[in-house]
């Protein structure tokens, strides 16, 4: 407990320092609980998620960093490796390939990388995965783009307005 708290506090200070360095990630610690974090990440450019801002929820276990944090998308996203309803993420480093050398910051980076390079071979979102598997990149992109606009952009970007 003490070790995880100390480590999280280190990360907290590191985040304050790095905020400027990585403008794509904004990690915020819950005011009352250091084991609860949220992050805002920018959709990577040249992907259907570009222009969107996605919110992630972190739940850090007491055994952290020996055990991985639990992360899920709060913002709806159309992506093969993210559960469409729950936001659960299928990413090896969050499961069996976790290493204590990872940080919350690097997990965010890994998730951004996953957004840019989906793994349709291990789909949590079947429709999305099958679109990519069948080679319908355009279909996939337009779906993903639509959900990005619907859920991850400020209201004025909505397709129904104007």
């Amino acid at each position, binding site marked *: 407990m003490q070790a995880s708290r100390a480590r999280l506090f280190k990360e907290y200070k590191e985040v304050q320092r790095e905020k400027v360095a990585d403008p794509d990630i904004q990690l915020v610690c819950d005011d009352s609980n250091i084991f609860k974090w949220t992050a805002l990440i920018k959709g990577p450019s040249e992907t259907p998620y570009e222009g969107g801002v996605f919110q992630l929820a972190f739940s850090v276990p007491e055994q952290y960093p020996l055990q991985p944090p639990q992360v899920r998308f709060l913002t709806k996203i159309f992506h093969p490796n993210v559960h469409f309803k729950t936001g659960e993420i299928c990413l090896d480093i969050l499961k*069996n390939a976790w290493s204590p050398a990872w940080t919350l910051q690097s997990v965010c980076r890994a998730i951004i990388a996953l957004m840019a390079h989906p793994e349709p071979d291990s789909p949590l979102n079947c*429709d999305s995965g099958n679109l990519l*598997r069948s080679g319908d990149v355009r279909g996939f992109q337009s779906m993903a783009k639509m959900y990005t606009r619907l859920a991850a952009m400020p209201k004025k970007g909505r397709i129904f307005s104007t």
Partner: protein
Amino acid sequence: MDSEDDMHDANDVDSYEEDYYSGDAMYSDDDDDAGYEFLDNASDDSDDVSVSRQQKNYTILKEDDIRQRQEDDITRISSVLSISRDSACMLLRRFNWNVSNVHEAWFANEDAVRKAVGMLDNININPPKAGELPCGICFESYTLDSVSTAACGHPFCNTCWAAYISTSINDGPGCLTLRCPIPSCGAAVGVDMVNMLTSDEDKKKYRRYLLRSYIEDNRKTKWCPAPGCDCAIEFDLGSGSYDVTCYCSYSFCWNCTEEAHRPVDCETVSKWIMKNSAESENMNWILANSKPCPKCKRPIEKNQGCMHMTCNPPCKYEFCWLCLGQWSDHGERTGGFYACNRYESAKQEGAYDESERRREMAKNSLERYTHYYERWATNQSSRQKALADLLQMQTVHLAKLSERQCQPETQLKFILEAWLQIVECRRVLKWTYAYGYYLPEQEVAKRQFFEYLQGEAEAGLERLHQCAEKELHTYIDGNASQEEFNNFRTKLAGLTTVTRNYFENLVRALENGLSDVDSHGASSKTSTSKHAAGTSKSKSGKGKGPTKGGGSTRADDLTGWSCDQCTYMNPKNATSCQMCHTSR
């Protein structure tokens, strides 16, 4: 690969054998006893039948033997390849403890092997001579003496190392392939670091996993499944019967690790065991919520995530949860992932209705099943009782009887032999009921032949059991004369031999898949059907024996003659019984 076998033979441990069908091993030292002529005959006869079966085809390894072998293998690799014992150990583990495979792979492509195992060629990131280093896990700075590194040089404080290794050890045998915590690094963390950095308890667990890996990863060795037994059995693959007996006296089938079930095959046994537990809540839950890993068969519960399953180390098999097919086979061909085509098509083909229908049928035939199950279970408990009686006999009664009859215990060995025979026969008989359950109804001739053999064997066993259980007590408690006791000796020893022969017959017939039926032809069919009718009665009347006196009438109208002593059906031209050698 063969060279490895030869090496192992060098430190062979004497294997201890109990083959009840071999006969000669047990009786050969009893020549001095008057009551045994007819036993000796029998053992001569059984010699040529079973000598091929009792060749030693397995070796029992105690924990010390296993460690010794492991150490020897590590020493061999480390001296031949000039690498540390630590690295040698990791290499061997990677190649399932197969020394020649390690050699082969190493000399074919050393770099690839090094990379796969995580043996870095000492490319240390030059550590500073003094000052402090930041730990890569807790991010605190430490002086050099409280920081450790694997071969790669990535620094972590000793506390974090201990926690990291401990977490991995508590996660299971995957700790044997532990790597440096830096994700991109891959330098192996071997037994040396574990010993240096972790608690005694964790070290013990790690050593246990290492020992287990030596047995479990090796294709030729398996643990004895008896509770509390630490021995392992090395088996010469492709050499006859799978039945082995451990030092702990537990007999089991090396192939499926269920208890010994000769002559019934492993598939039947597993079906039967599955069936027996199908009613239990536990099994229902496993069936409803888990699937066996297609490779290692451990039940797997899926609690979250995608359909891409990866079995726990050391199996690590990747498969699709829906169709249980290999994951790498998936892709466009199966029409995408979530809608796994094979699942759909299986449903369309009615494979699911099929299993549903089978379940329904099983319910309908519950009565039939109960019949066989009852007999299977009764023999099981009867065997347990016999085992307890045997122990009681060895520890208490034998000494008592020896006093009463003024005979040395060595001359009372025939009693123990009778009990050993009973225990073994109960085991065989038990499994023949599983066999009987799965013998197709429509194979009438085979069924009749089987039931005949089973009935005869069972009747013989009941007589033997009765004699050993009830009659013996009159000699333990009462004051019988020397002569009476000698008669009893002859009777019990005779029954033991006869029963053994019956069971040997039964075992042989079942192992041949009852193929004799085809060659026997029509004439014997009528005879077997008669016997079957007779024996089905004798089954329920415990200990009564087969229809007595029926022997003479049978002998007249059929091709053979029935022995008066043991009721075995002999061919017409035989002058003495092929079973018990009584003359006609």
